[in-house]
């Protein structure tokens, strides 16, 4: 095996890969139109930098068990810093660059990887962070705690999305119960690392430029259209 961090080609059959590819394209098209409202002269450069930062940190596999490692997915991180629509585009761009240039993550599995990390992971992180934003706005400690929890959730739920895809169209010979138990167990451990990295990064941004944090710009109570 070579260095690979995301789903390769051939783990899930072609019709399932195609279906999730179409789903990914549809959601990303919505994200492009919704992202405009969150991008201006100040936040657009921030979003570009956040994307480059996620690419860099995804390279850093950290050990979780003997013979197994994990790496940042980045869903909660981008959702908190730049919002869910821009954030889903950030992760999708990272996955496309990794797949095309770095042979990491199969081309036919791109729709599956985008679904798991750029859509499910980002929106899970966002929904958790948004539901806790009262705590996040109270203090920097509160924000860091919310970032940890949201990141832990985004890791485990993204892993569950893979289990669903494998249940629908898995091409290999492993039993579903085993896959479920292993994916959730390992990603609960990875989620701790994801939580620590996300909390440290969000905390560092909050210490210098809290105005650039999307979650802190959201109104304390929901008024009008949800974003």
């Amino acid at each position, binding site marked *: 095996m070579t260095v690979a961090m995301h789903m*390769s080609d051939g783990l899930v059959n072609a019709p399932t890969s195609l279906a999730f590819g179409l789903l990914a394209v549809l959601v990303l098209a919505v994200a492009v139109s919704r992202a405009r409202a969150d991008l*201006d002269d100040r936040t657009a450069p921030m979003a570009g930098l956040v994307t*480059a930062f996620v690419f860099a940190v995804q390279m*850093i596999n950290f050990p979780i068990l003997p013979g197994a490692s994990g790496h940042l997915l980045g869903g909660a991180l981008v959702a908190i810093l730049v919002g869910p629509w821009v954030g889903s585009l950030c992760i999708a761009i990272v996955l496309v660059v990794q797949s095309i240039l770095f042979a990491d993550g199969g081309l036919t599995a791109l729709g599956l990887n985008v679904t798991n990390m750029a859509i499910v992971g980002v929106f899970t992180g966002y929904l958790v962070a948004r539901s806790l934003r009262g705590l996040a706005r109270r203090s920097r400690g509160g924000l860091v705690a919310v970032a940890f929890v949201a990141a832990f959730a985004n890791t485990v739920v993204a892993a569950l999305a893979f289990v669903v895809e494998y249940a629908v169209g898995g091409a290999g010979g492993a039993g579903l119960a085993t896959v479920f138990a292993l994916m959730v167990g390992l990603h609960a451990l990875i989620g701790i690392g994801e939580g620590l990295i996300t909390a440290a990064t969000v905390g560092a941004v909050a210490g210098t*430029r809290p105005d650039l944090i999307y979650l802190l710009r959201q109104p304390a109570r929901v008024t009008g259209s949800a974003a």
Partner: protein
Amino acid sequence: MSAPARFYVGFLVVALLVAGGLSYFASSAPDGLDTVALNGCQTVQAAGGEELTGECIARNATDHATAGSPLADYSLFGGDGTVGAAGIIGVLVTLVVAGGLFWLLRRRGART
């Protein structure tokens, strides 16, 4: 340098240091998904390289379509010790693609 520019430059420098330096210390063990995908299989040496035997998710995994890319597997032309350079290129490419897209998509003119 203005304060906003300092923050952006600092953010980029951190990303470059992570991809260009910290990447040498990354674990080479398979990640969570790969660990699960390989569970139940053994890797055996065959005539055409390594092959998987047994019952596992990755049994039918195929070689990557862009395995011939000069940056494949986070290296420069497969060279040892080039992960840092590959990482720096990746950060800059990602920044240009994402920054370009977001700059084009942004709202222009007076803010309402």
